[in-house]
């Protein structure tokens, strides 16, 4: 029994935290939020130089060939730092999609650029309000081209290519890679609640496309890809949750009212304890999630859904009550509390809401029960 990261992995965490403390202070997120840019290209460059984008990509494709434990650690630190970069789109989704569904030639073609950070990929699934399903997709793949509109697509304005989910036969989909710089592709910025992670609408009109793996993909294979991303996203959300708790604790200790630190009032201290409890349960579930991911366990669907739901709840609560703990200053633009509040909600909606993952969690429990 060893349910803890290794010494090397814990060292990586420390290193990552130190690096981001230096290069991704809250002012970095703030400058993207206040400015016109969709992300911070300098930070992206530095993160790529650290090799983080290469973490889980095999060495033969230009990656570091490390595992998901390392990627989870980086995800958590990027969450803590509310990093304004397209990491989850390019690494958790685009890279993973190519590794899962691409043939050797495709891996050779796309993975080295993703590993080096020279190429930014994104994943284009959503088309309308509500969940995408195998039945309601409208985007079509036909004769090596894609037609349709994908919105909102995370990092659409800065990505070099997109893995586009298109409709195929019932219960199946195609995954097609489209070069977003092609003249047949139109892009339009969409305003969101977290401008430090830009979104856009991408319109394809017979846009040249390369089918990932050359055939249809079952909906459950797509769900497996999303399960994997959900574990990594859960770690990113956990980073937000823990950082928000720390910020709230620090403030509660130094802010005085009625002659005492506000953290000595049970209304505040019990709120912070409730955050801690949620965060701790989320962390333990995230441990199980990354273990299931790293060890290719059958329990991945249940572990991923559980980790995702727990981290969604913990991060939303912590971000929200961190503002509340800060009182009047909490809801100003000037204070940093807003970053966690925005990012927590953004991440909770990416790849499916809490309700969506709760439903999948119970489906996994039902399968487990039927198998027992």
């Amino acid at each position, binding site marked *: 029994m060893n349910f803890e990261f290794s010494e090397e992995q814990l060292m990586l965490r420390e290193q990552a935290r130190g690096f981001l403390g230096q290069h991704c202070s809250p002012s970095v997120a703030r400058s993207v939020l206040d400015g016109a840019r969709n992300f911070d290209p300098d930070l992206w460059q530095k993160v790529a130089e650290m090799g983080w984008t290469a973490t889980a990509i095999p060495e033969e494709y230009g990656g570091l060939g490390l595992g998901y434990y390392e990627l989870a650690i980086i995800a958590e630190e990027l969450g803590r730092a509310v990093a304004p970069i397209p990491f989850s789109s390019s690494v958790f989704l685009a890279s993973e999609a190519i590794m899962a569904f691409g043939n050797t030639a495709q891996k050779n073609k796309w993975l080295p650029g993703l590993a080096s950070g020279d190429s930014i990929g994104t994943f284009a699934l959503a088309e309308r309000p509500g969940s995408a399903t195998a039945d309601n997709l409208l985007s079509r793949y036909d004769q090596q081209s894609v037609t349709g509109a994908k919105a909102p697509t995370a990092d659409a304005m800065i990505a070099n290519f997109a893995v586009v989910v298109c409709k195929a036969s019932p219960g199946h989909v195609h995954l097609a890679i489209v070069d977003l710089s092609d003249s047949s592709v139109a892009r339009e910025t969409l305003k969101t609640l977290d401008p430090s992670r830009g979104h856009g609408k991408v319109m394809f009109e017979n846009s040249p496309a390369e089918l990932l793996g050359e055939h249809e993909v079952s909906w459950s294979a797509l769900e497996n890809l999303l399960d994997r991303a959900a574990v990594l996203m859960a770690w990113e959300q956990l980073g937000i949750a823990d950082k928000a708790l720390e910020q709230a604790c620090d403030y509660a200790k130094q802010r005085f009212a009625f002659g005492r630190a506000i953290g000595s009032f049970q209304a505040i201290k019990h709120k912070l304890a409730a955050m801690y409890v949620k965060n701790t349960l989320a962390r333990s579930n995230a441990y199980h999630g990354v273990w299931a991911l790293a060890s290719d366990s059958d329990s991945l669907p249940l572990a991923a859904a559980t980790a995702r739901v727990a981290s969604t709840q913990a991060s939303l609560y912590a971000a929200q009550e961190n503002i509340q703990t800060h009182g009047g200053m909490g809801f*100003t633009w000037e204070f940093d509390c807003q970053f966690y509040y925005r990012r927590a909600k953004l991440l909770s909606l990416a790849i499916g809401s809490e309700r969506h993952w709760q439903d999948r969690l119970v489906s996994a429990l039902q399968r487990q029960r039927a198998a027992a």
Partner: protein
Amino acid sequence: MDFNDTSQEAAFRSEAAGWLKENQLTDADREGRSPLEVAKLWQKRKYEAGWACIGWDKEYGGRGASPIERVIWDQEESKYSVPSRFFVIGQGMIAPTLMVWAQPQHKENFLPKLASGEEIWCQLFSEPAGGSDLAALRTKAEKDGDDWIINGQKIWTSQAHYADYGIVVTRTDPTVAKHKGLTMFIVDMKMPGIEIKPIKQLTGDSDFNEVYFTDVRIPDHYRLGDVGQGWTAALTTLMNERLAIGGGGPGADVKLAMEIASLVEINGRPAIEDSAVRAKIAEFHVLEAGLEYNGYRAITALSRGELPGPENSIGKLVGAPKLQAVASFCMDLLEESGVLWSEDDLLSSLAQRSYMGAPGLRIAGGTDEIMTNIIAERVLGLPQDPRLDKGIPFNEVPTGN
């Protein structure tokens, strides 16, 4: 129980409705005017016809109407799209304070101009170091001949940048206990030494200001109450604040949630048929309906001559977190599209705006925690928290710095 008007109430309602219909704002009235100008135009029109601040005495520009008549008037007026937010603080909170504490000449001078909308007022109580502990304010007032010299900083002041006057609470004696060393004044907001900086919020809007006072000179006759009586005077304002702030205004609600749940699908069926969605909507409806009928009970109590008590604090206490929860729920229904914040798309932007605005509502005018304390102590009669600052000279109270 009866939701209908008495015959007397019906007569009043019909008179009010008639006047409103006759005199409502036209497109021409709005044309080329800023919201503030439109508001002033409308207020003036009401004032001249005797429909402004109808609960006030006639000498101050009102018509001495009963509480239930005020409710009826508000109900009728709210059927029209009229701007009223500019006057809530001045008429709803500051005027009652002036009525109790100002010298006769100031009442005669200021109150009619408050009623007519000619002058806008702001309230200068909160300070950065105070927060929920309002009385811990530090802005100094020092006597200089017949005048007072004010130095310090206020925060969360709505309307400061276009207000004509304000009421300000200052510390005139830091060597006595916190609540005892305060004094309140009227202040002319155009005086030299006053600097106003807007505060940008989470929403991107700037509804509040910081106000800096540097050697601002105030005549002694602008004092409201005795020296050292500032906290008692402030309580007059604050009690009226609890009445003036309601459930939080328009925002994400059950209606919006029903609308979104009817448009989006879950597993190929309208989301409104999904029982998890239904359970949440039912939860929110229980809160909204409870607050609505609570309001009717409060109005009934008012109309029977009872004074509204601290139990009315639940409007904001329930309403603001509910707004946050409904907004989040609506965004979840939209799934990935829930992140979109487009001014054109009413459906999603109302939820978004509410989600970003709710944190402020849970704090402004008394945090959830303070409102809960008020209910526990003043309604349920539970004992106060131990007060470490009680009876201690203000300048000896621990501040953590």
